[in-house]
């Protein structure tokens, strides 16, 4: 068996956490809380390690003798400035918060705006990419809910039939969503169990 110690730790920690989840005995629940706290801490440390790795990758790109990536330099500088400011001034400082609200927010929000255009273009080309009646239903449904979402029809709310019809149509997606969510839950269950059974060992690198 590969990585027996790690496998034992994964199974042990997982089983204890799981038991603490379903059996509300003080010993188990406190053990579960403790393990979750450790996991959150380790996730934080892993985040820092991965950030260092991200920087090293871009440093390599920047200093490569061929195909040198100039944009990587911008990444490293941006990181350096933000990190230094954050460490010195602390995250709550207005200047550090301005970095988020005046640099990160505009960029993210603009990317989201670009997504609106990309998705519209994708929707237009849907039938060019793939036919089939599922695509047709998807397009019809998207069209109907775009109209509903625009609030255009709510101007005709005084028509009782329309009101009931809209209510019925609005509840239709719930059925499919439930089916998908339950299916995803089943998949999550079996995937998680493979880790707890030790058949999946992604940590055995």
């Amino acid at each position, binding site marked *: 068996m590969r990585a027996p110690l790690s496998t034992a730790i994964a199974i042990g920690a997982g089983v204890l956490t799981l038991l603490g989840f379903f059996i509300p*005995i003080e010993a188990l629940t406190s053990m579960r809380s403790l393990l979750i706290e450790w996991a959150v801490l380790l996730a934080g440390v892993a985040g820092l390690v991965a950030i260092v790795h991200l920087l090293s990758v871009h440093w390599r790109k920047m200093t490569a003798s061929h195909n040198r990536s100039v944009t990587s330099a911008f990444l490293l500088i941006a990181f350096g400035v933000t990190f230094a400011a954050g460490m010195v001034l602390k995250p709550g400082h207005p200047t550090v918060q301005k970095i988020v609200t005046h640099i990160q927010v505009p960029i993210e929000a603009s990317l989201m705006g670009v997504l609106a255009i990309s998705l519209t273009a*994708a929707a237009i080309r849907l039938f060019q990419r793939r036919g089939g009646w599922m695509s047709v239903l998807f397009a019809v449904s998207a069209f109907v809910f775009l109209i509903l979402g625009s609030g255009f029809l709510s101007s005709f709310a005084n028509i009782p039939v329309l009101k009931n019809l809209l209510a019925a149509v609005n509840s239709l997606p719930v059925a499919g969503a439930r089916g998908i969510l339950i299916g995803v839950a089943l*998949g999550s269950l079996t995937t998680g169990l*493979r880790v707890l059974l030790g058949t999946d060992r992604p940590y055995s690198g």
Partner: protein
Amino acid sequence: MITILGVLGLGVVFLAAGSIIILRMIGKDHGQPAFRKIAAFDDLKKSIGLAVENGTRTHVTLGKASLTQSSNPSALAGLAALERIARISSTSDRPPIASSGDGGLTLLSQDMLHAAYRSVHAPELYDPGRGRLTGITPMSYIAGLLPIATGEDVSSHVMIGNFGPEIALVAEAAENANAFSLAASDSLPAQAALFASAQEPIIGEELFAAPAYLEAERSHAASLQTQDILRWGVIVVLIGGAILKMMGIL
């Protein structure tokens, strides 16, 4: 004090675990079980093979789910698929790269690549630079993915994990670069966005079938069979519960 839901929950967990173990053992004697065709996975196999033949790269991205989030199984399924893809394409001059939007996932993807190359007796192929964190927030993760989608000679993108709808930007960039893209997410908004923008969208639970359809370990097939068993169990409970509720018994 133990609640009924707690007992039921444990019961479901033990049932599923037992089923996976038994089906895995049975499978050893009876070979690979039959599954319905999912065209997207067939196309993925072809695409990986052609990436190997053409000396181009396969890119696997695992999403942004933290390991401490309840949506991490999608990433675990992605990791299993990554391991399989790394094995298959280890003959390529351009080994696959893995990207993710969470630190823990990044380290696991590096471990997975390492394990995959060791299993094909080519540990020297392992380069930690191919298991990358592209961004720490959901949108910066996507921003970091765009250069990979448009450069680095990637001919095949496999997106399996937890994404937001913004992943459609990557699918679009991949299509502009004439690359194959298979996308699967456990997030409903992302599935909707990908249905319109990805070449091969995978819907819902099919995400967890990726490793089994890529002919990974026997346990993956067993867990798919277990999903089927639990599915019909849930259906029976839904119908029975509805009838009992209507009769006022439940």
